[in-house]
Structures are given as C-alpha cells and as structure tokens.
C-alpha cells in the first residue's frame, strides 16, 4: 500500500481529534457534575431520571400534605380533650347540685351559671379553626361549625364533606370531623340535641325548683352519652394520626431511596471519570507526540 504524507496527516488529525473529543466529553461531565447532559447521552437513563423526579416531587407533596394533616389532627385532639374535661366538669356540677337539694335555689342558680359558662366555652371549642376553617365543620366554607340561633338552639353550619389529605399513593385521610357526629344535632323531629342545648336544658332544670331528681339523673345519662361521642371522635382522630405518621415514615424511606437512585442516574461517578480522564489524557498526549514525530521525518533528513 502506498502511504503518503497527506494520508498520514489526515488519519492522524482524525484520530487526535477523536481523542480530544472524548477528553472534552469527560471534562464536561466532570465540570457540570451531570452524568446525562442531554437525553441522547443515555435515553433510558433520561426517562428514568424524569420518572424519579416526578416521584420525588409527588412524595414531597405527600409529606407536605401529611404535616398539614397532622396539624389538623393535633388541633382536633387537643380540642376534644378539653371538651371531654368540659363535660366532666358539668357532670361533677350536676352531681353536686343533686346533693345540694332542691331548696337551695341560690346554690343551684350559681351552678347553672357555671354550666352556662362551660356551654359557651364548649361552643368555642366546637368552632375551633385551622387556617380559618372549622375543624368540626366538614368541608364547609362557613367560618363556624355551630351557630347559635335566636330560639336558643345551635344550627350546624358545617357540612358532611371531607377534608381529604393524600399522604401516600393509596392513602387519603379525612382530617376534619363532622360536627353533628361529635357534638350532636338539634332536631326536634328526631328528638336529638347538641351538647350545647343539653347544657342549656340542664341549666334550666337547675333553675327550676320543681325539677325532680330523676330529671337530673336523666340529664347525667345524657351527658354520659355526649361524652361518649366525644371520646369516639378522639379515638377516630388517634387512629388517623397513627396512620398519617406511618405514611410519613414510609415516605421518608422512599425519599431516601429515590434520592439515591436519582443521584446514581444523574450525578457523575467522579472517581471513575477521573481515572478515565487521565487515561484519555495519556492517550491524547501520546497521539500528539507520536504524530509530531512521524510527520516531521522524510527522506530529506538523511540526504546530504
């Protein structure tokens, strides 16, 4: 085969150029820290990276939802605890009134006043809000769950809607409670009443000298039932709280795994690249020096 200077030069240039190109690739990966600079570098890896990013963003969203859910549930828990204490106080007062005797009108009236105070406190508790939303109002847009009416009853101004927080792919929890389930409902037709109306009734009973012991016993029973409803509400909330916390823990682990996967896909493997870089640099240097030596020589060097 005939070899000419130009052919050597063409080949040498192409090879050295290829070396330099690979060197640039490694250098750009190292300096950017990105393993995939463009989709064609690794088409499968690119798609995976996009999916991992979507999942990461999704789980971060779940975590934000979960912490919001926990703030609702914590509020409900402390509210219900206070409400239970409130009912216990009323029960104590009624028992006290029973023992005072019907004749001591002043003492009974004082107890009735205290019960009225406790009722107002309980209404306040039932209207507790998070971000301006009543936690016992379902999904209502109204600022309060229970609104006092001119006739002395309490209208439920919430609704039966759910305030759903998605805390995992298949886990949605309703963090609000329907006020009527917890505090009862004033309904003359159905014969049901709210705790607040029950308090009003007890207070009226205590102010009535003619009220019988059995009436007060019935009131105590009604209070027991009401307190039971509050405790059911608390238990429901407690179960949800645990569920959200579990979901949060699972999400934490998923986040760690996904972040690791993302890093493996997108970030450069620095030690490997540095070794590649020195190998490539060596090959580039060798190419340059050999090319320079070969292209220098010709027969002319040896003629005199």
């Amino acid at each position, binding site marked *: 085969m005939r070899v000419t200077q130009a052919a050597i030069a063409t080949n040498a240039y192409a090879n050295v150029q290829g070396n330099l190109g690979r060197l640039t690739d490694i250098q750009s990966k190292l300096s950017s820290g990105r393993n995939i600079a463009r989709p064609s570098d690794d088409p499968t890896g690119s798609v995976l990276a996009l999916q991992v990013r979507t999942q990461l963003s999704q789980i971060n969203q779940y975590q934000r939802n979960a912490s919001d859910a926990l703030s609702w549930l914590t509020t409900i828990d402390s509210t219900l605890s206070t409400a239970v204490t409130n009912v216990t106080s009323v029960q104590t007062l009624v028992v006290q009134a029973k023992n005072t005797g019907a004749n001591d009108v002043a003492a009974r009236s004082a107890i009735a006043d205290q019960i009225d105070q406790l009722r107002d406190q309980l209404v306040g508790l039932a209207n507790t809000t998070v971000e301006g939303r009543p936690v016992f109002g379902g*999904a209502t847009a109204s600022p309060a769950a229970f609104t006092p009416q001119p006739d002395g009853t309490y209208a439920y101004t919430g609704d039966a809607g759910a305030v759903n927080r998605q805390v995992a792919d298949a886990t949605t929890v309703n963090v609000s409670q329907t006020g009527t389930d917890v505090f009862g409902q004033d309904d003359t037709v159905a014969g049901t009443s709210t705790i607040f109306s029950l308090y009003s009734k007890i207070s009226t009973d205590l102010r009535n000298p003619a009220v019988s012991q059995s009436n007060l016993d019935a009131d105590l029973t009604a209070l027991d039932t009401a307190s039971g409803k509050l405790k059911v509400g608390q238990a429901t909330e407690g179960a949800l709280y645990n569920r959200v916390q579990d979901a949060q823990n699972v999400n934490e682990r998923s986040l760690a795994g996904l972040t690791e996967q993302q890093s493996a896909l997108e970030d450069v493997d620095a030690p490997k690249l540095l070794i590649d870089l020195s190998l490539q640099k060596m090959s580039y240097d060798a190419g340059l020096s050999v090319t320079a030596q070969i292209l220098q020589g010709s027969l002319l060097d040896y*003629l005199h």
Partner: protein
Amino acid sequence: MSSTFGGLQRTLDALNAQRFGLDVTGQNISNLGTPGYTRQRADQVSVGTVTGVPILYTKGENVGSVRTDGISRLNDQVLDQNARREHAVNGAAQQVATTYSDIEAVYDEPSSNGLAQQFSQLWGAWGDVATHLGDGGPAVRQTLLTESATVVSQLNATAGALGRIATNTLGQLRTTVSTVNDQLASVASLNKQIVAGNAAGQSTNELQDQRDVLLQSLADEIGAAVTFEPNSNATVSIGGSVVVAADQAATLSVDASGTGATTYSVTSDRTYGGASWTPGPTTLPVAGGETLGTLEALNTTIPDAQQQLDGVAQALADTVNGATAGKYPAGSATPSSTPFFTDGASGTTVTAANITLNITDPAQVPVSSTANSLEGDAALALSQAASGAGSPDAKYAALIGALGTEASGATQRATTQATVTGNADAARESASGVSLDEEVTHLMQYQRAYQAASRAMTTVDQMLDTLINRTGTVGL
C-alpha cells in the same frame, strides 16, 4: 547504423527528458499541501531501439532515445468515486445529527429547569391548593396560577425554539442550494475548458483537480454522483436526475408546497434526457449530502418534534380542563364555566405555541365538585395527575425518551460515517497524494539520469573528436 551525430541528439533528448521530469517532481513537492492536488508524473517513453533496423533508414527518427509523452494525473477513479459516495452519506448523517442535537438543546433534560420539573411543580401547586383552602387559600391559588403561567410560557418558548430551528434550517437549505448552483455552473464551465484543452493538446490536470474539488463538495452538499464521459466531460446527477451535462448546468431552487404542513423539496429548472435538455421544473430525488439532512429535518424531524410537543400541551389542557370543568371555586355557589387552558381564544384544542392560561383571578380557580364547599377534591385529584394515563408528564417522558434514542442513533451513525469517510479520504490521499519520500527519490533518479546523460554526451563528443581530428593522422 545510425547517423554521425545521432548519439549527440539522443543524449540531448535524455537531458531534456530528465530536466522535465525534475520540473514535474518540483511541482509535486511544491503542492505537497495543496488541497485537491493530484500528483503528476512525466511520462517518459523510450523511442525505438539501438539494435535491429535503424530507424534512420525507415522513418528518419531518432533511435534509442527517450521522449516525454505527457504528464499523467495519478488519481484512482474508483477511490475518487468511493470517497464522493461516502461524502454524500456523511453530509446527510452529519446534518441529521446536528438537527437532533439542536432539538435536544431545546429541552434541557433531565434537569431542574426542564418542563418535567415544571409539570411536577404544577401538580404540587394543585396539591397545595387542595391542602390550603382556608385563610391562606388565595395566596396559594395565586402561586398555582404563577406555576401554570410558567408551564405555559415554557411550552410557548419551546415551540418558538423549534420554530427557529426550522427557520434556520430552511435558511441553511437555501444557502446550500445557492452554493450548489454556483458549483454546478463552475463544473459546466470547467468541462468546457477541459475538453477544449485536451483537444488542443494542453495539459488539463490542474483544471481536473479543480473540478474534482468541486465534485467532492457537491457530493458533500447535495449527494451529487458523477460519471466521466470518454471525452473527459463530467456528467453530474442528483438522485439519477442529470444536472450538469457537458458545458450546460441546470439551476436548482428550493420549493415549498402543501397547505398547513409545508413540504420542502429541491427542484431543477430543466431535465436532461437522451442527449438534450427539456425545460420545465422537476423535483430532484435528493439521496444524500447535507441537503438530504436539511430536507429530512424540515419535512420530518422538526414537524414530528413540534407535533409531539403539541401532544404534551394538549394533554396538559385536557387533564386540567377535564378535572376543573364544572367544578366550583372555593366556597362558591356557581360552577366555573371557563376552561383553565385555551388556545388563546375560546377553543380548547391547543398547540404548544398557542396554549394560554385562561384564568387570572385566584378566586376563580375551580377546586371542588360541591357548591359552597372547601372540599378541594378536584384540586386533590389534579395533584395526582402526573401518574394518570395520558398525563402530560407521561407524554413528555415518552417524547424525551424517543428524542434521546433517535439523537443517540443519529450521533452514532454520524460518528461511524465520519470514520468511514475519513478512511475513504485517506485511501484516496494514498493514491493521489504526494509522497515526499517518493518525490525525493525521483529527484535523485532524475539528477543521476541527467548526470549520466551528460556523461554519455561527453563520451560521444570525445568519439567525434577522435573521428574528426585524429582520423588520418596515424603515423604522423
């Protein structure tokens, strides 16, 4: 038996021949680095013979001498054709790779700035809207509108960038075609000069070199194929359609046709068949070269990329519009009647270029399927949209995957073809390029031959001296 002074004449011929050989060698060495230069060789032929019947008695010509017949251009037609063919494939492959690389640069993926990330942020914003429907609601919904506007402007910008790639590619196609026209005209005029020069017995090697450079460039640019006629004319054809025959060249132009989706093609203003030109435009079946790459980009690659991006925009509009249609804004009694995304007017068939955010008031963001409610179920559903079938995220990921695969394939083909083309070039350089060692060897050879011929001339001269001055002086 030869003439008395035949010896002198023969050695003079030898001196001339060697000197001319030296000239040609000198020219080769001078053009060691000239692009497109094909090495040349003085063709020396021996004339007659000193033995046998002396030509003196038959034709009256010199015998046993040397004569320079001409100068050969030492190229290899097969290697030249092969290099041109590889250059045609290479031109197209490089152009296709460039197009994909341009399109890839439009999508900055995977990164924190790409559309995928913005979709995620959009769904996250919907999630936050679902979570915060109370006091903080308006602010969070404003953030959602900002995220939506960001996605929209990114889609618009990406569509715009694809449009600019198309515009630039079309500009490049027009420039290439105009260059090709100049080169076709030059080839035709060189054809004329070469044929005329050959007829006049002049050396046309340099003209042929020039023509080969042009032909190679034509192969690179438009995949032109060449056949050489017996009279040295180069006939240039593109995809089988002749564009240069003898001293006539056709003029090419870029043609755009079709409504809506424009199809570009290259047409020639006349056709050559049989032995004559027929006027009238004809579409050239371009089969190689950069032009094939630009045509492919304009007619297929870029429109496909635009279509896929439009699909993503449509999926976004469908997903969000579908989930919010007839839903109630927070605490509102009237359902929303305006679509979230439109085509800029009232239509909901959108493209990436015209998708527009239609809701600007945070209070108008539909979130619930119940009136007067803060349930936020519609917003919550949208926060899950990324994983839904036919979601813009899925379409976008598919687009990036397909683009990456195509681009990676195109780059690999371009790299391989560049190597193949480089090898073809090197093979041709091996045949037609100047080898310094060889030329220096020839230099010595001619020099020694010249010296020897001078020596032969001196010897003949001395013989004649003996004949003329010493004859008859024996014994004097």
